[in-house]
């Protein structure tokens, strides 16, 4: 009962944050809204017994990534007049919603076929650091390894794109 209640609270927060993100004119407001969504999501992760991901979501996502984004927004010192004029965007929201209705309906139809499993907390270390870690290093070794390459590429890429180098003429 409590879990259900919490779900609805978090869900509401998440949707509100998401809507805030796309509705807010200034990216700063949007970013804050997104942080709210992420925190709400982390709560939901917890409700889904994903202990490790719950933590990661808070630390990595809500913490690191969003901080970085906020930092850049502030670093660029975006003023109101730098923002694009988006006067007709309500039209886009409306059109987008119309377009997305069949997509959403299809997706929802798909998930509605699932058995009605209650989301009680699973015990026995489900989603714990150790269990997930073991899985990560055994069954999922390959993706784990190549993620390292991915990050390396991202690193190099960021440097190439944003770093100062002599070869720029």
């Amino acid at each position, binding site marked *: 009962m409590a879990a259900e209640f919490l779900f609805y609270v978090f869900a509401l927060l998440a949707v509100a944050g998401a809507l805030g993100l796309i509705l807010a004119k200034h990216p700063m407001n949007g970013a804050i809204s997104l942080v709210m969504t992420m925190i709400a999501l982390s709560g939901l992760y917890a409700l889904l017994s994903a202990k490790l991901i719950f933590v990661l979501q808070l630390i990595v996502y809500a913490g690191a990534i969003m901080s970085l984004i906020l930092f850049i927004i502030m670093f660029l010192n975006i003023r109101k007049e730098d923002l694009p004029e988006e006067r007709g965007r309500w039209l886009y929201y409306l059109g987008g919603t119309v377009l997305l209705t069949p997509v959403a309906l299809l997706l929802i139809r798909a998930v509605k076929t699932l058995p009605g499993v209650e989301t009680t907390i699973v015990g026995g270390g489900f989603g714990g650091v150790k269990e997930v870690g073991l899985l990560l290093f055994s069954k999922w070794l390959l993706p784990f390894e190549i993620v390292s390459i991915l990050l390396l590429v*991202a690193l190099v890429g960021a440097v190439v794109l944003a770093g100062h180098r002599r070869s720029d003429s």
Partner: protein
Amino acid sequence: MIADYLVLSIVLFCIGILGVVSRRNVFTVFMSIELMLNAANLAFLAFSRLHETMDGHVLAMMVMAVAAAEAALALAVVILLHKHKGNLDSNAFSLLKG
């Protein structure tokens, strides 16, 4: 109910798409994409809970890593764009067309 989580995930996913198609602010668009990835993560975890396997957790971690890498690059691009035009309007970048 697991399905509720998934519906939420879908709603967030769709809001993310909506953000991409309706906004010109590059930042907002990138954050909308992050939102889409988060929605996917929620789905991974919900399914993981449904099947009571932890593979979904690992997958979600991977998606997070990808999101982080993309974010890094996206921010670099944002800085580049800002250098070029001083604003973050995606419509301002329409030299290549036709």
